[in-house]
């Protein structure tokens, strides 16, 4: 084998190396050529070295080339002979080693003699020992095999799990954590909002009888029909709530923006005035007003006309304005606004809060710039304050709508309450509140639509 390989190698070498070596020899004999450079070149860039060698060969005479070739062949043959000799030597040594391992007949005989001298017990012991050893070895081999087998799948598993761990990316982990944060709300939403909502929808399409628990019998749209056509006050309540809203929303918006701009100025006692303006948020809701109502003097207190002390009486103001010769319609409107001042002031606490927060978010450098440019307060308001506050107007409108509709004092909700608590007409109440909800959604949708249209037009 090795000879064949060597021969093949040699043949290959002859083809490949011949030119190179001849060139090297040429180089050796060329005193002008730097040996080292040639060597590195032939190592690093054999192609280029060969080319150079060919060039040099072309410059040489045919006798010189023949001499070089002969020298080279001699050299190669010498190497070949040396290799053959070494191989033969190795073969001889190997054979010697094998023959050394083989026991001579004399030695064998000696061993047998020694064995025969041993007692049968000793022999048994030896045999047992050997069997035990063999067994132990077998067991050990088995164990290691099992161990390896075990290790291998475990490792494979580990690798797999590692892969899995890596395959749960940071993002999906974060999304899981995020959902965990939201989960309590989601459970609450299902239990205390979605399920009651669904039941309410069921109620609105059925006759509900409430004893211990409740029983529903489906009656299509009867509840809706009855509420819309049979009920005398529902539509009236709904329209009155809507007109109230239509009048109140613009007034509340303008008023709260106006007040917010005033409260955003710097003056002494600002903290106190702000606290006073947020007071309605604390006190206004629910019972206090209801108590005023229940004693029958709510409107009187609100208009400031309380039996014995007249603070500002609207009727008188209207007369006064009429005597001044103002337009009757204008007078009417002004008295209406004056009538509503109390409602508006007391209802716009949160709107003021939202506008004020927006105003405080405007960078002071904008105002400084406009001041430097010589803008008047009017221009500053319309060019800086208003555009910055504009996004909050939508929020405020929606909040005002939701607040007015969600206020348990409004006529529709009062009627729904009485349907539930007084006449136990659960179906009717559910139908009424769904109509009410759809109205709210329609109005809010319209507001959003108008806002989109406005921003789209302005762009």
């Amino acid at each position, binding site marked *: 084998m090795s000879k064949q390989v060597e021969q093949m190698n040699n043949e290959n070498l002859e083809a490949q190396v011949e030119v190179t070596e001849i060139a090297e020899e040429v180089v050796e004999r060329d005193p002008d050529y730097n040996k080292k450079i040639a060597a590195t070149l032939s190592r690093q860039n054999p192609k280029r070295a060969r080319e150079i060698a060919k060039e040099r060969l072309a410059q040489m005479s045919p006798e010189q080339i023949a001499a070089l070739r002969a020298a080279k062949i001699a050299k190669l043959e010498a190497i070949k002979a040396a290799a053959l000799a070494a191989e033969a030597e190795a073969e001889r040594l190997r054979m010697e080693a094998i023959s050394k391992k083989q026991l001579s007949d004399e030695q064998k005989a000696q061993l047998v003699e020694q064995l025969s001298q041993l007692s049968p017990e000793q022999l048994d012991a030896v045999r047992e020992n050997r069997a035990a050893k063999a067994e132990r070895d077998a067991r050990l081999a088995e164990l290691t095999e099992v161990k390896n087998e075990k290790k291998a799948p475990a490792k494979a598993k580990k690798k797999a799990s590692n892969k899995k761990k890596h395959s749960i990316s940071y993002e999906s982990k974060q*999304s899981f954590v995020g959902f965990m944060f939201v989960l309590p709300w989601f459970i609450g939403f299902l239990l205390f909002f979605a399920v009651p909502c669904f039941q309410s929808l069921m109620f609105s399409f059925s006759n509900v009888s409430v004893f211990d628990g409740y029983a529903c019998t489906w009656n299509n749209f009867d509840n809706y029909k009855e509420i819309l056509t049979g009920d005398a006050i529902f539509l009236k309540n709904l329209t009155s709530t809507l007109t109230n809203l239509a009048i109140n929303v613009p007034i509340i918006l303008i008023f709260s923006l106006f007040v917010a701009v005033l409260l955003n100025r710097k003056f002494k006692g600002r903290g106190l005035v702000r606290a006073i303006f947020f007071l309605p948020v604390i006190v206004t809701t629910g019972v206090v007003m209801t108590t005023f109502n229940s004693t029958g003097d709510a409107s009187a207190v609100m208009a400031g006309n309380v039996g014995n002390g007249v603070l500002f009486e609207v009727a008188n103001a209207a007369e006064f304005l009429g005597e001044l010769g103002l337009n009757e319609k204008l007078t009417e409107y002004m008295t209406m606004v004056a009538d509503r001042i109390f409602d508006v002031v007391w209802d716009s606490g949160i709107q003021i809060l939202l506008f004020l927060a927006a105003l405080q978010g405007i960078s002071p450098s904008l105002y400084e710039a406009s001041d430097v440019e010589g803008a008047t307060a009017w221009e500053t308001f319309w060019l800086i304050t208003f555009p910055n506050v504009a996004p909050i107007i939508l929020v405020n409108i929606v909040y005002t709508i939701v607040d007015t509709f969600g206020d348990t004092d409004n006529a529709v909700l009062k009627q729904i309450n009485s349907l539930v608590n007084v006449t136990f007409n659960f179906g009717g109440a559910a139908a009424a509140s769904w109509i*009410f909800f759809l109205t709210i959604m329609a109005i809010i949708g319209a507001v959003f639509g108008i806002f989109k249209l406005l921003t789209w037009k302005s762009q």
Partner: protein
Amino acid sequence: MQIIKAFKHQFGANRKKADSRMWAYMLAKFIANLSIALILIGLSYIILYPLIYSISQAVRTQSDMYDTTIIFIPKHFTLENFKTAWTVLDFPTALKNTFNISFWSTILQVCSCALAGYGFARFKFRGKNLLFFLVLLTIIVPPSTIMAPLYTSFRQFDPLYVATAMNAFGWISEPYLELTDSLWSFILPAFFASGLKSGLFVFVYRQFFQGFPKELEEAAYIDGCGSMKTFLRILVPNAVPAFTTVFLFCIVWYWNDYYTVPMFVPNMDTLPSMLGNMHSNMTTYGGAFRGMDTIALYPILRAGIVLYISPLLITFIILQRKFTESIARSGIVG
């Protein structure tokens, strides 16, 4: 008066800077400031009027009610009305009940809504936008829509047949839990961020946490903090304005709630229900008030109102500086 002085001060300060030709401008500014001051004082008066008037009526005797010369300052000062109102309202019990309902619900809701708000503000997960739309929906749907079914479900509360299973094991006597007339009807929804106006609070928290710089959290994550630990250690201490705002609104709305409270705990004496029924209670209370002129009862009713709002007023006065100054930072507006 202080405000006018303030404007005078400003006027004087401007004068130092101004040259003599600026007189007209200065005068205009002074008039503007003065009118602003007048407007603010007038509006403050409108706001404070019912309060002042209530207090003024609460401390006068019944005979003073018929005296037309009295507007604000009574001739016969008395605290009798407060004593009467105290007994009619059953004030200690009612206060304790209302405090329990509003305080514990508020504490739970402040925490649970903060968690939900943080989840919506900082994490991306499938269906987030839909869920947030549902949050907004809970704000819009009027409470009356779900109140009747909610009440019936609270009467016999059995989510996922848990109570039925507990009954089967013999832990409870009925196959349902009765949440009505107990604090649970408020604590349970508040724990799951579904109490009174919770959608609004989730929204407020989301806006606040969205405006919070992300770098701090990232630093905490890199240092090996988990999400919950980051939330508790980094965000909560920095979210004091948001927490204050939500706390105040939440406790006020629970305190003033005249709709769900009497519905869920009809047999519990709470301040809203007691105050709402005060007039009818008084005319049947003992014999002293029966057949009396309503005007004669005003002082007692007003005393009741003052008693009712006084805890809120005290809370507001304590928190208002933080509250009003931190609205901008709370980022409600986003």
